[in-house]
C-alpha cells in the first residue's frame, strides 16, 4: 500500500480541495509510455501526476533533472516536445497528440561535430 493510501483510508488530493471535474482527459505520449493528461495541465503537471519527477539529463554529468522553480526561471525542466528540444515543461501546456521525450544534454546532439 502506498503512503498516499495508508492509514485512515485515502488521503485528500488537490482535486478534493478545489472540486470539479476536468473538461477533457486524454493520454500524453512520454518516451514509450502513455500518461493520463487533463486539459489545461502543463507538461510538467502531467508528468508529476504520473509520479515522474525527472525528464532530462545534464550535459556534464548526465544527472537527472525535472521541475525546480516551477515558474519558468530556472530552465531545469527542459524537455523535448514533438522533436523540439529545450522547452520549459512547467510553462508549456500539454496538448493532445504531443510526443514528449526525455532530453539528453543540450538536446542538440545531432549537431555535434
Amino acid at each position: 500500500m502506498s503512503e498516499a493510501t495508508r492509514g485512515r483510508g485515502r488521503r485528500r488530493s488537490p482535486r478534493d480541495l478545489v472540486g470539479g471535474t476536468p473538461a477533457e482527459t486524454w493520454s500524453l505520449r512520454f518516451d514509450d509510455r502513455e500518461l493520463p493528461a487533463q486539459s489545461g495541465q502543463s507538461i510538467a503537471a502531467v508528468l508529476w501526476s504520473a509520479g515522474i519527477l525527472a525528464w532530462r539529463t545534464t550535459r556534464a554529468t548526465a544527472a537527472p533533472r525535472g521541475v525546480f522553480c516551477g515558474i519558468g526561471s530556472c530552465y531545469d525542466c527542459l524537455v523535448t516536445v514533438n522533436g523540439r528540444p529545450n522547452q520549459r515543461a512547467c510553462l508549456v501546456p500539454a496538448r493532445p497528440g504531443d510526443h514528449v521525450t526525455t532530453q539528453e544534454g543540450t538536446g542538440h546532439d545531432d549537431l555535434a561535430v
Partner: protein
Amino acid sequence: MTTSPSDSPADLAVVGAGPAGLAAAVAAAGLGLRVTLLDAGERPGGQYFRHPAPGLGAARPEALHHGWADFASREAALRAHVSAGRITYLPRHHVWTVTPDPGGGPVWALHAVVGPEEAAATVGARGVLLATGAYERQLPFPGWTLPGVVGAGGAQAMLKGGLVLPGSRVVVAGSGPLLLAVAGSLAAAGARVPAVVEAAAYTGYAAHAAALLRNPGKLAEGATYGGALLRHGVRLLTRHAVTEAHGTDRVEAVTVARLDRDWRPLPGTARRIPCDAVAVGHGLVPQLELATGLGCATRLSPDATVALEVDAGQRTSVPGIWSAGETGGIGGAQLALTEGEIAAHSAAGRPVPARLARARTRLRAFAAAMAGAHRPGAGWTGWLREDTDVCRCEEVPAGRIREAVEDLGARDARTVKLLTRAGMGWCQGRMCGPAVAALAGTDPAPDRRPLSCPVPLSHLAALPPRTPLTGPPTGRPHLLWPRRTH
C-alpha cells in the same frame, strides 16, 4: 504582432499581470488611460494568484488562495475594460527588452517573445509600468539537485496551476513566511508535511513590534497559517536547516541540523527525516533586468536583495518608467495591489489618494521587519561540501568557486562567472546568483541581463542595423532602437 510603436501607442504599457500589474492596469483604465497589459503567463494573476486553467474544471479555485476576492474583482474589471477597448490584454507575451524612442519622443517600445512558438511582437507606449515580480532565492546544499527537491514557491505554483504534488511526504524548508503558506497548501491538498524547517528565529520580528502592531491583518494571516499547520500536525522547527538531501535518482530523506545565530550548522545536532520531496526556498528576489537595462536606480533591501528605488508615486529614476510590487522590494500581495493603484494614479497625472499612501507606508514597514528577520546568516556556507553544485545549469561545484575566490582572487560574482562559468547557463544566474555572491564575500549586484528570456536569433537579426547588442553603460538608458514595422 499586435501593435507597433508607429501605431497609436498606449498611454501606459504594464508589464506583468500579477497583483501589482493587474491592479495598476484596471485602476489606470478606470482613470481614463488606454492601457496595454503584457504578461508572460497564460492567465492573469501572476504567481500569487496562479490558478488552474479553465479546462481543469476546478469548482473552488479560491480554496488554494488567501485573498481571492482581491483577484476576482480585478479580473472582472479587466474583462470589462478589455470589452470596452480600454485595455489591450496580451497574455503569453514575455517582454525581453524595453527601448526608448530613438527620436527622443515620449514613446517606448516593448519587445516580446510570444507563446511557445516564440513569435515576435513589439508594442509602443508613452509610459511603462514594470510589475515583473520576483523569483525564489535558493541557497544550495548537498543533494539539492536531486529530483524531488523543488522550490517552495515552485511546489506552490505547480499545485495552484496544475493541481499536482511532487510527493506524498514533503519537507518544507528554507526561510520566510512563504514556507508557512506552502506547508499549509500542501497539507490541505493531501501531502504529509513532517516539518517546516525555518532557518531564522521568529523572535527576529520582536525588534519590530511597532510595525507588527500596525498590521493586524498580517498577524491574523500568520495566525491562520499557524492554525492550519497545527491542524495538519506539521512541526515548525525554527533555527534549523536542511543541510543535505539523500537519494540516488530522487529524494529519500533529508538531514536537518540546528543552526547558530549566523545559520552555521551546530555539530552533533543532525538528524534524518524520511521524505519523498523537499520544497525549499529562502525568500524572494526582485526580477529587475528590464529596469536595470533601462538604467533604473537600485537599492539594497534589508533581506540582502537588490530592489528598485521608487518615489512616493512609484516612479523609478528613469522618467516615464514606473514600478510596483516586488520589483521595489519584497512585500507581499497586499502591498503589490496598493502600489499598483498608486502607480496608476501617478501615471495618470492624478494625486495619490491618502488612503493608498498610508497603506503603502504601513505595509512597507512590515515588509522591512520581515526582510530583516529572514536575511540569510553568513554561516549557511558551512553546510556546503566541495562537490556540492552551486550553479545548477553549468554544474559548477562549491570547491571551484572557492578556488576562484581564494586562489585566483575573484572578488565578485561576475569575476567568479568568468573564471568558473557559474551563472553563465540557461537561467543566467537567477538560481545561483545570491549564493555565488555570498561565496565571493559581496552583496549581490543588480541583475544585468540584456535579454530577459531566450530570444530567437531571427528576432535580433530583424532589429534595425544600428542596434548595439551589448548592455548599456552603468546608469544610462539602453540605446536599442525600437522596431517600427513587423
